[in-house]
């Protein structure tokens, strides 16, 4: 699939093959690429910047940051699973103060677009995090990780209740500059993801990140006990991709205009294309980074090529294309089958 890169001077994205306009807009966040990192899979960008220029990404989505420093959970924190992995890190991180001073400052100085992911134990935590971020430059958007236990609700995860999810989003919206978009990151571990999506949008979310990990468990058959010290963990990687694409599809049908950042097991440009066709304006590459540190760049290039092969001149034209009725699929006849790589069929 990979093709020689031609870089015309006027190309909107200097590292696409120049035929497809890859720029995208996510709730007002303008990006030259639709490919972002995923929270928890890129730290705060610095490590990956050794492998590729992170300013070429749509944005860096940081690991979820909490108010206070957190040591996280004991090890083992990870188990490999078929086409995926289970993790239980426990939000280890330096806390918002050190994050702002060290990581956000570095990202800003580096010139990377930055989506700061925040996580809390209470609605008040989220409000305080938003207040702190409001005082600093370089926050291009906030992704609200609501897949955290709500201490006030006996540990029920915010993302699993429309009311709790709304309360968090409202608190963040109220304490965030109106020019900074807020993305609610949804959990797939719910009966009806669209009802949570609608609740978040009503509460003021400007866009949705779809999806977080799925709760899973691996038993170590040698030790005959759970493989992770935290017992359960979040499942990620290509194994969850069909679940993620389904969630994007359902939310796009329920909310035709809401910006969606799609993620869940994206490994190739064609994987990313599934999310775009299902309704996402942009995508995050997460677990794949562990396998291929420069994966996000490769996915961008492969996606650009795949769009060109299908006759799209811009990424925007492809968003939600799979939802179109046959008579509205104007592009389909413009693609000669011979142009499509066999691997992509």
């Amino acid at each position: 699939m990979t093709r020689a890169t031609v870089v015309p001077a006027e190309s909107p994205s200097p590292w696409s093959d120049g035929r497809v306009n890859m720029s995208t807009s996510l709730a007002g966040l303008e990006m030259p690429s639709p490919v972002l990192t995923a929270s928890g899979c890129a730290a705060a960008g610095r490590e990956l910047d050794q492998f590729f220029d992170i300013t070429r990404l749509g944005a860096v989505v940081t690991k979820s940051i909490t108010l206070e420093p957190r040591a996280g959970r004991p090890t083992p924190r990870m188990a490999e699973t078929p086409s995926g992995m289970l993790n239980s890190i426990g939000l280890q991180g330096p806390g918002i103060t050190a994050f702002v001073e060290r990581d956000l400052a570095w990202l800003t100085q580096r010139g990377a677009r930055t989506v700061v992911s925040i996580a809390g134990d209470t609605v008040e935590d989220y409000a305080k995090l938003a207040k702190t971020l409001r005082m600093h430059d370089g926050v291009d958007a906030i992704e609200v990780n609501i897949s955290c236990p709500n201490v006030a609700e006996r540990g029920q995860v915010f993302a699993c209740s429309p009311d709790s999810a709304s309360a968090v989003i409202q608190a963040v919206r109220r304490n965030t500059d109106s020019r900074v978009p807020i993305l609610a990151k949804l959990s797939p571990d719910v009966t009806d993801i669209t009802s949570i999506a609608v609740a978040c949008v009503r509460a003021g979310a400007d866009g949705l990140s779809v999806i977080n990990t799925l709760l899973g468990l691996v038993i170590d058959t040698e030790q005959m006990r759970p493989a992770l010290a935290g017992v359960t963990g979040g499942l990620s990687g290509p194994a969850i991709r069909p679940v993620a694409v389904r969630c994007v599809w359902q939310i796009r049908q329920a909310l035709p205009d809401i910006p969606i950042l799609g993620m869940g097991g994206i490994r190739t440009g064609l994987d990313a294309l599934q999310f775009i066709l299902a309704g996402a304006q942009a995508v995050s590459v997460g677990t794949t980074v562990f396998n291929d540190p420069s994966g996000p760049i490769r996915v961008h290039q492969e996606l650009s090529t795949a769009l060109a092969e299908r006759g799209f001149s811009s990424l925007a034209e492809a968003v939600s294309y799979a939802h179109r009725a046959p008579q509205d699929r104007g592009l389909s006849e413009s693609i000669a089958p011979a142009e499509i790589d066999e691997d992509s069929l």
Partner: protein
Amino acid sequence: MPEQYRGEVVSVRRAGSYHVLTLTAGSIATQTRPGQFVALAIGGEESGLLLRRAFSIHGVQERGVFGGTVDVVVSPHGAGTRWLAQRHRGDAVNLVGPLGRPFSLPRDPVSCALVGGGYGSAPLFMLAEQLRARGCRVDMVLGAATEEKLFGVLEAKRMASTVTLTTDDGSLGQTGQVTDALAGVMDQHGTDVVYACGPMGMLAAVANMATARGVYSQCAVEESMACGIGVCMTCVLPVIGDDGTTRMVRSCIDGPVFRGDTVRWADVGTIPPDTLGASPVRESSEGAR
């Protein structure tokens, strides 16, 4: 600076229970310092095994017919290591490296004991070479469960002033563990610095023995990793910083080599309550990040 390299297998040879793979590695080879590691992708671009496996670099050849190459020692015990052990000359293997902090080398020509458990001895030979080049005395202690599981005995004999071997079953050398032999070696040769690589239990015992004697130690840990490049936060262990504070640090970036007296060996696998950011007994079933 680490890089990603599409390497290929130059050779695979058996060494006891282990397989030694020589892989083309471009400038990874020229950058490598003793104690650093490479993270190898398993099974090609569509593999269902996504996580890289970390291997300490056993040796390098900076330039040759194949350009730079690195040697790694593989003990086939799981799906990933079995796949690696089954590679043949010319097969593709994707490498990221060199990763991690190397062993620090003494400024003065001091007396060094190098301790390896099983194939944990892999990085010690590059180290021994560099120590010798600085005029250091090198004594090696290699231990394993059985003779088959000792790695690098001949190489050790070629490089070190003395080599002491131990096996749990007595199939070669002294019956027992490396720590049983180490005290004698340290006394006899006036060891100033201990370098060690091997399983956690062995490292804990070696580090504690060195610390008890007021001897400086450097230990390369083996923690399970998902990425090897510092982004996934799975390979953490409790380490005391210069400020006296314990933090959960990444063995891939802040290690794999740690000063033996800074690792809280007894607490590995836990979050000690006095760790920076340790929670006041906050348990939940939440599993996502």
